[in-house]
């Protein structure tokens, strides 16, 4: 089980701020995870439509789409940051 957390318009489009899911064996990388989530329904499809703008943090550290998820406890998906 891994905890997924969503922020900003990704959270709004998916319609929830977090959830626990079981990752299928074929989901190895961050990119695999995004592709997998897009199949979970319309909200996910719209939220993750353009994978290039989806930022992902594994255990609260920025990750690349090519990174291996491994035994992550917490994965967050969010749009480009606009703080500061």
């Amino acid at each position, binding site marked *: 089980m891994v905890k997924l957390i969503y*922020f900003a318009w990704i959270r709004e489009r998916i319609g929830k701020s977090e959830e626990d899911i079981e990752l299928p064996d074929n989901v190895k990388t961050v990119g695999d995870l995004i592709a997998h989530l897009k199949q979970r329904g319309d909200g996910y499809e719209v939220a993750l439509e353009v994978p290039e703008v989806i930022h992902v943090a594994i255990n609260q550290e920025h990750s690349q789409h090519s990174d291996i998820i491994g035994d992550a406890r917490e994965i967050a998906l969010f749009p*480009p940051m606009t703080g500061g």
Partner: protein
Amino acid sequence: MDKAPTIRVQVEDFDLQTEIDALTNGQRDIGAVVSFTGLCRDDKGALAALELEHYPGMAEAEMLRIAQEAAERWPLNGVTVIHRYGKIEPGENIVLVVAASKHRQAAFDGASFMMDFLKSKAPFWKREIRKDGSESAWVDARDTDEEALKRWR
């Protein structure tokens, strides 16, 4: 860096002189302190407020990583990074970065570096709440912010 970075994510406003005094207090070898304050801006007169969302835990962790990276690159005596969240009205403070050093160039570079990285790497998102009650919109990231990172490579 002698002193651990001060990192805070908070709803409350901050007072710059208080933060600088806390940073420099007791150190006699600081010659230069550079601060950057980011404020909520309203160019067109249409903005009621910004609503800032953040990723608790990671926000602080990322701010600390940025502060430590700055302290590795320049001889800094201390740094402070404070980011507010929640509803912030035009003219109010959003973010504060302070870098203290012996000489001015390290303080300027350290503060500028931290701001560039905060903009693109700290997990905060701004939404505009408009005066006319129309649907609020998430603020788009600016390409120039990504560009700004390149000069630090």
